[in-house]
């Protein structure tokens, strides 16, 4: 501003300018000076000083030009000075505003760089719980069966031999009882009936049929007990879902169709299934139900090239037992075995969860270590 300090503090007459021609170089000089110094306004502080130096009401350059050049000028010259001054003011104001915007934007981006959140840091961690994995699997299976018309019922875990065995066509001394080692309760002397811990959820089949007439379509989730010594694949308590469908027109084909639907929903559409004839006293025909091994895709060969450890090379994994309800069972619940037919199945939940999630020790389900619980949120 030094370069124009002298000229703007003098009147035009003192500068020897009397016409428009003489005026133009003067304004050009002022404008050049402004343009050259504009860069000085680099932050909010210097911008304010710069703005006041040019637009200040009392001592700003434009105010001085107004006072020294415009006001004392002759009427004819005044018009020309006024026009030149307005043009200069327009230029100065626009440039200063432009500068302000630029400075503010710059300030914001530098502040952003300083205050930006570190996205790799965690947020505030609030405690959140989880459902037990077995409960999750229960729910998933219940949902599948509810979607095809099965209602959910429950029954007692402490049962009588009648419901756990006899009414399921397993009379005393039946060899199958040897395979279902049973816990009995200690009862006061003279108790009318022994009590036991149910070895399967099947007693609820009987309890359900006692209460209602066909059509029956139920599933029964619950705990069951067998007196087995605990190890990686055995627990003396585990979980089952029983299924039962009885109606006047249910056939073996309906049975296999229902089971296949369930398995495809649970394991995925690519899983292969097969039914092998088997033996249970409360179903006939009885089957064992197998699925193609989900670990080796049914090839029997592990990814490493060796024998698949999960299916022991068979390519198939035995999932559960099932079958058409044995007509003898209907006799216990006063259904007419000549008119109704149906099917029943009992799915081991723990085993299914172990298969689906690659768990190799059933005991983890019952230890409830939070490190295990956390893995299945």
């Amino acid at each position, binding site marked *: 501003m030094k370069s124009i300090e002298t000229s703007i503090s003098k009147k035009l007459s003192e500068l020897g300018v009397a016409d428009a021609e003489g005026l133009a170089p003067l304004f050009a000089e002022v404008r050049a000076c402004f343009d050259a110094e504009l860069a000085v306004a680099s932050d909010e502080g210097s911008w304010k000083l710069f703005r006041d130096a040019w637009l200040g009401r009392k001592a700003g350059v434009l105010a001085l030009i107004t006072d020294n050049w415009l006001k004392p000028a002759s009427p004819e010259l005044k018009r020309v000075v006024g026009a030149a001054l307005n043009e200069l003011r327009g230029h100065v104001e626009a440039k200063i505003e432009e500068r302000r915007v630029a400075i503010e934007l710059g300030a914001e981006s530098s502040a952003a760089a300083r205050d930006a959140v570190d996205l790799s840091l965690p947020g505030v961690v609030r405690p959140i719980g989880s459902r037990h994995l077995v409960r999750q699997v229960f729910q998933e299976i219940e949902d599948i069966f509810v979607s095809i018309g099965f209602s959910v019922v429950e029954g007692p875990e402490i049962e009588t031999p009648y419901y756990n065995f006899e009414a399921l066509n397993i009379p005393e001394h039946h060899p199958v009882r040897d395979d279902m080692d049973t816990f009995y309760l200690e009862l006061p002397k003279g108790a009318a009936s022994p009590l036991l811990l149910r070895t399967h959820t099947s007693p609820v089949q009987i309890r359900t049929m006692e209460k209602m007439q066909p059509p029956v379509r139920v599933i029964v989730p619950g705990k069951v007990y067998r007196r087995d010594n605990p190890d990686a694949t055995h627990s003396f308590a585990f979980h089952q879902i029983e299924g039962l469908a009885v109606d006047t027109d249910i056939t073996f084909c309906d049975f296999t169709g229902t089971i296949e639907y369930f398995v495809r929903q649970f394991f995925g559409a690519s899983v292969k299934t097969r039914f092998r004839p088997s033996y249970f006293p409360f179903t006939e025909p009885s089957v064992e139900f197998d699925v193609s091994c989900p670990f080796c895709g049914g090839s029997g060969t592990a990814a490493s090239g060796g024998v698949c450890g999960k299916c022991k090379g068979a390519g198939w994994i035995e999932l559960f037992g099932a079958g058409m309800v044995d007509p003898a069972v209907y006799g216990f619940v006063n259904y007419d075995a000549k008119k109704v037919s149906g099917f029943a199945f009992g799915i081991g939940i723990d085993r299914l969860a172990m298969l689906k999630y690659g768990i190799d020790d059933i005991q983890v389900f019952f*230890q409830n270590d939070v490190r295990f619980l956390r893995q299945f949120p």
Partner: protein
Amino acid sequence: MKVVYDWLKEFVDVPVSAEELASRLALTGTNIGGVENGPHGAVIDAEVTSNRPDCLGHLGIAREVSAIYKTALKKLPSTTGKLEPAVGGDALQKVRVDIQAPELCGRFTARVIRGVKIQPSPQWLKERLEACGVASINNVVDVSNYVMLELGHPLHSFDYDKIRDQRIVVRRASAQEKTRTLDGVERVLDAGTAVVCDGDGSRVVGIGGIMGGADTEISFATKNVLIECAWFDPIAIRRAARALRLHTEASTRFGRGADPEMAGAASRRSAELILQVAGGELQNGAVDEYPGKQAARKIRVTRTEFLRVMGADVSDKELEATLGALGFAPVRIDDHRGAAGSLLAAWECAQPSWRADVEREIDLIEEIARIHGLDKFPPRLPAARAGAVRLPHFEAEARLRERLIGLGYREILTIPHVAEERDELFRPSGVAPARLANPLSEEAGVLRSTGTVSMAASLEWNLNHSQRNARLFEIGRQYRLVGEESVETRVLSIGATGEAREQGLYDGARDFTFADLKGDLDAIGMLAGGFRWEAKASDGGNHAEPEWLNPAKRGHIFLGKEDLGVAGQLSRRVADKLKLRQEVFLAELALGPFYCAYYGTKNARRYEPLPRFPAVERDFSLLLPEGVHFSAVAEAIRALAIREIAAVEAGDLFRGRNVPAGKYSLLARVKFQSHEGTLTDAQIGEFSAKIVAALTTQLGAQLRASV
């Protein structure tokens, strides 16, 4: 049952390899453990189900093969003329048999061979037994085992000269009768066990169908042999074997039901093989006492029933071939015999003596279906006839679980078997636990009478595995006895230990306290209309004072008049017993009434219009005598029945510093709200004055300041 592939081929032509055969057998009802190719060729491990004792011999498996591949069964190796007649002959002079318990022993055959030479078995015999995993003993004993593995029927050989009076008596054992079996063990018998005796019947020489006696055992000095081939009642055998804890190859077969008709054939086969490998001279004929002989049962099967059960058909030809191969001799008996595939077709079958498991039409249907192949019945998803219904408490339990998870609790599942001494710690007095008569161990001797005992154990597990912060819940059952009846009750157990908030980037750590537990429980209570907390149990309530909770930090939870349960901090005494070295909080609630209240509250809930005028809050800083609880303050304020009072809350609480001993400072925050208009300062002032007056006169409160 180990099936030797080459042995099997002596009975039936097998058109496929052992491996192929094994997979086919697996899909027709014989579970297969595996196939091994060893020094004796292929051996198939058949896991025979308990209803098929006929498959516990090579002949039975051969019959399956014959049905599967529709190839004829071969005749048994021919017998010498000396074996005839089947009954009578010289044998009658050599041995007498008296069955005194025909209900236990349905048939008893005996043959005598004189002048045998007991010696090690020839190689082929040893190898066959070895392939089946049976140890070779001597030629005569080995023959018994060989015939059992071949025909599925157990036999026993006696040293004929040790049988007194050449007389066999089969009778019931008397209670506590003793005998020494050939494994050298002295056995005490149950009354009702079938025993084989000699002479006048006083000496037991064998436990019928289970194991022979030591006194009459074959030894290398034996010259003359008596071959027993009998039939014993399956139930009696199972009962006796279980009582004796003596499970043998023989007891397995008789226990599942041997073929009574096979006894004669097996006896002949055995005699023939003994002559072959041990020499000697066979006494003509046999003694055959057969009081249990039964005529073959007739069973009908119809196509209508087959279709009704199976939902898809099998051709007449295949049906007849399958049943024929399995020995059922089907005969068409309907009036449409000319019409193949008639829907009205019916067959009459004869139950073979080796298939006691097939008695009914459904049994025949299963036979036809399994040999046909279960994969040939097309699966279809049946349409539902009625809407599916969830458990009655499904929604309440889902909301409860959801809320608990939101509050940070992880669900656990436990085994209800616990140690008696553990259960006692948490068991209310007067409660009878459900004890097990046959527990696996003392640690699992009783079913938990409370949910808390398992919850404490789960917290203990975590603390013992360096997991110091845990918030857990279980929705499960507790088990009790009332008289001779069992009672299972749904309970919610809650357990928490460690930090309520862990040290993080933004907040410091804070320990879990009773207030956390109470707040969490109240958040649950909101689902059912709100819990009420009391220091003492209701009279006659379900929950006596819980000794296992710290008396200073515990409370009873009520829902209306219902005593739901307790919550608090585990007492030092119990914590020390469980070696829990940090503070543990536990709660247990009965879920039945909670679920009930959930639905009741939900259905009664109605919208409350939002206030149109602003609410005003006033804080009353009070000095209260110790023992005067916040509830008394709130009640005193509410008792003023000022309609504009919308809420009374506790704002701040402290003791010590400038609070005199015996007193504590409480900030009561009262919210005023009118639906008619904005409250004026004058109105608020009037309400405040009433509140202060009530608190000072009724509760002895001093006002520190009113803001």
